[in-house]
């Protein structure tokens, strides 16, 4: 199996914990000098965390890192760069206000003999690097004015400028067009001819199978296996990526959908910035009481935008009609949506859902504070009585309702936020990627909870970046592609392959 080349990078027993979740659990991985090693896994499998550890962004809680057989410990990205490792981040790490050339050479600016910055030299150097990527971006223009795909190319040029022997690419094509991806692949081929080692993270099987020598699969922070490309098939790799046991339990069986509750017709949402295409185009669907509608789509396909538009949380212009229980509604503020019986559990728990400065009870009671007012003042006893019910129903594990919410695990925090919305007694529950960053056990509990709420007659709209989750919970799946509904699949028709095909359809 091994070609006998020297080991460029070895990671042994790498473990990394974040509050409430184990991101990596004793992962061991060896990368040979000069190979292209693909790392595959679902969202949350730990791919990006592993690469952040390799490039010095995060430090591991346990485990050993070796470069060319020498144990190393990186104190930061600078140290990793000195050891010859460069990373192309998935999230763009560019200073938008600076020029392209300044970004490419940030922290390593060429200088003139007088010690001043040598703008001409940095532009030349940036232009050379961009040319090697077959790009015609002007190095002098402001980075923020570029399209996302071009920004991604700048990020790649930045990594190339380090002249690193080991290059980590974290989903580099997620924002690129077909033509740009093809150019990137040609660059990768050139880099390999120069003998560089590449770690390539992706969940696009066609790319992986075109480029990789060997493939490592991660799942839930654990190493599943490493194989050579010739010995495997895309279906097999996908199977290893997904193969979790809880996916076997199908909750949707024997649910009886009631009358339609939420009807959306011809929803269009204009672009966030002029020049970009519309974020939603002619989206229509219906959700019934006691039914879970899943919404699938790639990053940026418009999943969150649909929920935010319905909930009155968007400030952009939109058109279309929304009916709630047969009544036409148009919410200008989340408060109105909340009053009308809508509830929305937001995508990014920390940024959009949690109040770290309030305790558990304060986080849960927030939307129904008027119910705990006694004589004009908040009553802490009444608040405790109010939140006890939903906290018990959702199964939050907390030492006390007055405990700090930041001390709870991700799953329990999410249950608190669901509790908050259950108190408003909604008719429709919008769940935006509710299990992101939550470990497997807590996911199963949340699935059971969502299923129970649905059986109690709630209409649920669920988006997820994980297909098995949608298949486990949904009665129907709506597939989005670039802001349009490209397919609606009943539970019987829906498979991961079909959803993926519809999500990537132009």
């Amino acid at each position: 199996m091994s070609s006998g080349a020297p080991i460029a990078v070895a990671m042994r027993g790498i473990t990394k914990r974040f509050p409430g979740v184990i991101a990596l659990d004793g992962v061991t991985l060896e990368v040979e000098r000069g190979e292209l090693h693909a790392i595959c896994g679902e969202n949350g499998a730990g791919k990006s965390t592993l690469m952040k550890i390799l490039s010095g962004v995060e430090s591991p809680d346990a485990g050993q890192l070796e470069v060319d057989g020498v144990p190393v410990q990186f104190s930061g990205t600078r140290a990793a760069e000195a050891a010859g490792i460069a990373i192309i981040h998935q999230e763009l790490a560019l200073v938008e206000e600076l020029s392209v050339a300044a970004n490419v050479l940030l922290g390593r600016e060429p200088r003139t003999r007088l010690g001043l910055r040598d703008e001409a030299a940095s532009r030349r150097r940036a232009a050379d690097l961009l040319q090697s990527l077959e790009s015609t971006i002007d190095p002098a223009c402001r980075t923020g004015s570029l399209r996302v795909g071009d920004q991604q190319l700048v990020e790649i040029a930045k990594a190339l400028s380090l002249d690193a022997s080991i290059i980590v690419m974290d989903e580099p094509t997620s924002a690129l067009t077909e033509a740009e991806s093809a150019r990137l692949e040609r660059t990768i081929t050139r880099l390999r001819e120069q003998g560089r080692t590449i770690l390539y993270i992706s969940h696009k099987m066609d790319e992986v199978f075109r480029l990789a020598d060997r493939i490592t699969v991660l799942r839930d922070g654990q190493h599943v296996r490493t194989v050579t490309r010739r010995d495997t098939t895309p279906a097999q790799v996908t199977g290893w990526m997904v193969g979790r046991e809880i996916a076997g339990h199908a909750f949707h069986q024997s649910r009886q959908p009631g009358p339609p509750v939420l009807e959306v017709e011809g929803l269009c949402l204009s672009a966030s910035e002029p020049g970009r295409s519309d974020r939603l185009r002619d989206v229509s669907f219906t959700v019934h009481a006691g039914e879970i509608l899943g919404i699938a789509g790639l990053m940026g396909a418009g999943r969150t935008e649909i929920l935010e538009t319905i909930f009155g949380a968007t400030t952009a212009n939109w058109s279309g009609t929304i009916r709630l229980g047969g009544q036409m509604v148009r919410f200008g503020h989340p408060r109105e949506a909340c009053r009308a019986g809508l509830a929305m559990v937001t995508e990014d728990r920390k940024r959009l859902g949690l109040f770290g400065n309030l305790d558990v009870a304060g986080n849960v009671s927030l939307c129904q504070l008027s119910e705990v007012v006694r004589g004009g003042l908040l009553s802490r006893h009444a608040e405790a009585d109010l939140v006890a019910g939903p906290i018990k129903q959702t199964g939050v594990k907390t030492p006390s309702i007055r405990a700090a919410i930041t001390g709870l695990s991700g799953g329990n925090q999410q249950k608190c936020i669901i509790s908050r919305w259950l108190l408003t007694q909604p008719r429709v529950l919008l769940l935006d990627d509710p299990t992101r960053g939550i470990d497997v056990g807590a996911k199963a509990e949340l699935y059971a909870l969502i299923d129970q709420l649905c059986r109690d007659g709630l209409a649920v709209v669920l988006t997820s970046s994980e297909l098995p989750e949608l298949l486990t919970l949904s009665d129907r799946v709506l597939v989005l592609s670039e802001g349009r509904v490209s397919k609606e699949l009943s539970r019987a028709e829906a498979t991961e392959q079909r959803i993926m095909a519809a999500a990537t359809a132009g």
Partner: protein
Amino acid sequence: MAQSLWSKGLSFSKRWWPRQSEWALVVAIGLAVVFTAVVDSNHSYYTQPLESLRDIARNTALLGIFALGAAVVIIAGGIDLSSGSMIALSGTVCATTMLALAPAEVMSFKPVGPLIVAAACGASLVTGFVVGTLHAWLITVVRLPPFIATLATLVGLRSFARAICESSTAALTPTKSALINVADPLFKTVRDNVWIPVAVFLLLAAFTWLLLARTVLGRHLQALGGNEQAARLAGIRTDNVKWFAYCFGAMTAALAGLFYVANEAVAAPVNQGRGHELNAIAAAVVGGCSLSGGVGTVPGTVLGAVFLRVVIDAVSKLIKTGADVYEGLIVGIVVVLAVTFAQAGGSPRPDRRLLPGSLGLCTIPILALVVGSLTGMTMGGRAGIVTGVTTGVLLSALRIWESRQQAAGRRQAPAAPSGMQR
């Protein structure tokens, strides 16, 4: 299982028990008072306890009134830099109203009558509401950052107050003037009875405490400061909550402005309240408010104001003449020390160094120079040299110790978990 642990009695008693940082402030206040009582060569805390107490109480009440406003704005996740200028504007509006309604009496230093005084004070408070509303509009509708919006009013309002003062005196009195004397006996009563501002301060503190701890609006203020996006998505009308916060901030400053006028018997927009906005923010921050929003209490802010005034008073007792020169320096040092200790108390990090790298090396002589020159100016040249050199030696020793610790830490346990960033 978890429910059995919710002892309501426990949560009740915990609620009334001041936090650790608040106890620390109480102790610090006590220490400052005892220190001053012992070291002061005039022993004024022994010989004139009532006068000393009255001075501190009056100054604390005046600062505390608008420090509470600053705290509410900070807890709501904003900042109000304009309160010093608001104080000047409030005083000017009050005096100008009296001048307009009773020009003869004001010019001849005669009483203007309670009705006119009430109208003047009302006009000041309305001005506070107007300024707060302007802030809220600039921040929520025009979408200026709070820092910029209130920086603009910090410079703008004082200028506006001076313009009002000059044009009203030009129109209503024989000569244009940069100040208006206020001689009504009601104001004199307030000046002579320190308990009035103190009572107003305590009532306002009680009201603010009730507001933050026990009302829906208070919870919404905390939620807004803690996570604005999430607050909006939870259905809170965040723009309205901000409107309230900035109005509260400006109106408490307006109220304080009335007391400044009473205290000094004059509305002088050129200097009144100048720089006071920073004292208010300092009191809130020393009292435990976090400038990133969502965190802070009324008892903390009250203690912060008391602490600040006690320390300033201690310095004036120790230095005797020209102590006001040092006031800003004291406030600066107190803020740095208080916030440093608050942070250290929150998350002790064993790997944290006080004097790392070349920056640390450069800081040693700077700190030594500051301590040395301060002591030299207040206690004589020789004492200054001695303390300066001692500080330098002590810091150098700390630096060497830290370097050794780090070297030792590097040698052992390569994979030790480092302090995780949250």
